[in-house]
């Protein structure tokens, strides 16, 4: 098989994984392994993404079988449409429609990037970017009609649109955070939150939990960055380790907000841990009572981590704070390193090893997402950026101070949602050097890869991606070559 790897760099996680295995508890890793090898046609981008009822069609990558879909679509158009579909999904995930798709979107470029955005739009071509691009992309994906280059161009436009429509940082804009297994050290009724819950709810629950004694009650996040007043909810693990923590025997209730993986809720239920949906949390007394009952049922010999295993930091969300964070970096070379956990790679290995190596090469690091959590856990000095749009804020800040030339590259060490892919594409379209460490479904079409590279090169940017999960040395070389 192609993917023999260790699961995580964290020795505590390794121990928890062994414990879960001994008890026969199946986690995301088992599901990942059962999914191997993942569908080869989809991995290559050669499974038709058009939602027609003649299919599903696919192209034989070796040229022996079908070379066109039933409608006549060829491999290049198929792979290009697949890219557009993923990018459209990514844009949609990032839009803040506040529950109302009719509100539309506002396009406002961060001032220092306005010129770059205008230049990129002019190079890529087409009408000025607008919300209508979403509908046009959907129309392009309704029936095969456009050529591959048009589809790739539209995908890049959506990447730019994702940047233009991204929410800007607030004015009061640093939030502290704590991360690590040490947060679970003391005995307390533990309520874990996964997915997105409103900040008002997080604050209310924190307040209510603070008043409870004998036993104490604590609220932790399972990898999500959830604002709760002046700090994020304490984050006990990265997103890839969430199930490992649920299986540790230390969680007494799971509060599953929108975006919580189904596997997490299923696992909790199978371990007799109560699971409540976000909206059910308004009944605080019932929530605490259920958690308390589960706490009383706990195996006393369950996981007892060292209290010292806590990393702390402060995420810079506003532009001034991002500027201050990057300015305080003593190096003239800045690397942006972030993204989500992915089971394609040993959890934490890439961000940690790459950050260490880059620091050794004289770089300052700014990070976001799970990668930032890994750096905090491993006490690697790095500026923490906003969890979702961090790299954009950093780029805007560097552009504002005229120091964009010190940016040697932006690397997504892992992708989880399509949103990250769309953002990567948008950043590359702004003329930046971007790398993605996990394979993209573009390897079935050399023409699409070439079109993507050529269009981005015309804007001055690049999107490097690999036909294998990239290793630290490759990415280090990629940064250093800059």
């Amino acid at each position, binding site marked *: 098989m*192609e993917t023999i790897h260790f699961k995580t760099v964290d020795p505590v996680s390794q121990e928890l994984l062994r414990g879960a295995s001994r008890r026969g508890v199946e986690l995301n890793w088992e599901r990942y392994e059962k999914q191997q090898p993942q569908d*080869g046609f989809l*991995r*290559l981008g050669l499974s038709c993404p058009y939602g027609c009822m003649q299919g599903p069609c696919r192209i*034989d990558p*070796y040229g*022996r079988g079908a070379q066109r879909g039933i409608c006549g679509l060829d491999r290049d158009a198929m792979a290009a449409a697949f890219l557009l579909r993923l990018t459209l999904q990514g844009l949609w995930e990032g839009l803040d429609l506040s529950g109302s798709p009719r509100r539309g979107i506002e396009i406002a470029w961060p001032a220092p990037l306005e010129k770059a955005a205008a230049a990129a739009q002019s190079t890529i071509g087409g009408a000025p970017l607008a919300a209508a691009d979403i509908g046009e992309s959907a129309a392009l994906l309704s029936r095969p009609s456009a050529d591959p280059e048009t589809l790739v161009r539209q995908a890049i436009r959506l990447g730019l649109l994702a940047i233009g429509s991204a929410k800007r940082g607030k004015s009061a804009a640093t939030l502290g955070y704590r991360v690590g297994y040490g947060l679970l050290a003391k005995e307390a009724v533990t309520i874990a939150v996964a997915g997105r819950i409103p900040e008002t709810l997080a604050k209310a629950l924190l307040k209510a939990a603070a008043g409870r004694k004998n036993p104490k009650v604590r609220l932790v996040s399972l990898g999500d960055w959830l604002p709760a007043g002046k700090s994020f909810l304490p984050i006990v693990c990265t997103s890839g380790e969430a199930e490992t923590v649920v299986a540790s025997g230390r969680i007494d209730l799971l509060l599953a907000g929108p975006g919580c993986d189904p596997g997490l809720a299923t696992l909790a239920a199978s371990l007799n841990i109560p699971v409540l949906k976000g909206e059910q949390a308004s009944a605080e007394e019932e929530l605490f009572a259920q958690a308390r009952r589960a706490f009383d049922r706990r195996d006393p010999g369950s996981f007892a981590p060292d209290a010292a295993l806590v990393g702390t930091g402060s995420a810079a969300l506003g532009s001034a704070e991002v500027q201050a964070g990057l300015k305080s970096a003593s190096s003239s070379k800045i690397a942006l390193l972030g993204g989500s956990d992915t089971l394609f790679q040993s959890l934490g290995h890439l961000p940690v090893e790459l950050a260490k190596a880059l620091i050794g090469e004289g770089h300052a690091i700014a990070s976001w997402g799970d990668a930032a959590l890994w750096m905090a856990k491993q006490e690697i000095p790095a500026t923490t950026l906003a969890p979702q749009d961090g790299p954009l804020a950093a780029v805007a800040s560097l552009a504002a101070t005229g120091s964009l030339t010190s940016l040697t590259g932006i690397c997504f060490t892992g992708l989880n949602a399509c949103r990250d892919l769309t953002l990567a594409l948008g950043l590359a379209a702004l003329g930046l050097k971007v790398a993605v460490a996990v394979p993209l479904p573009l*390897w079935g079409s050399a023409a699409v890869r070439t079109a993507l590279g050529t269009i981005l090169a015309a804007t001055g940017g690049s999107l490097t991606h690999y*036909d*294998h999960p990239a290793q630290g040395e490759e990415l280090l070389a990629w940064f250093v070559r800059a």
Partner: protein
Amino acid sequence: MKVIGVHTDRCTGCKTCELYCGAERGSEGKTLLKAVQETPSPQPRVRVEGSRDAAFPLQCRHCLQAPCLDACLTGALGRDEASGMVIIREDRCIGCWTCTAFCPYGVISPSPEQKIAIKCDRCLHREEPTCVDVCPTGALALVEIEAIDDLAREKRRTAAAAATAAGNGGMVILDLGR
């Protein structure tokens, strides 16, 4: 002797065996994403045939009386004594492709680029053949040839029990054994 058996009821025609066989056996890169970039295109040793209703992965059956062995002009095709598999020694193959005409299953393919014939050797260098390893539904399995009769008997027994349970009293499934 171990052979690749096919549970026809489990094959969905997904062609995963084809893709990964091509990568493992036909490519330099040994991974799917590298294989598709190679020229000439890798040739899988297994081929999924079928229709909407049924699919079947075809690869060399390693016939006990193999016509390809008799057809081979240079002795490139031979039987591996240890495993019982019919294998091809590429250095002796002259690319006459007589074997491809004689194979009753059509599972020996010409490789015009390499000027040899290619066929499944059941991945003798591996513990388990790639196609068996990657099959997502377990339709392909490595089985002792002697166990195939037992498998077939078990299937007949299961089918008979199911038919009886469904009240198909008029249907009789004969278990004739070996």
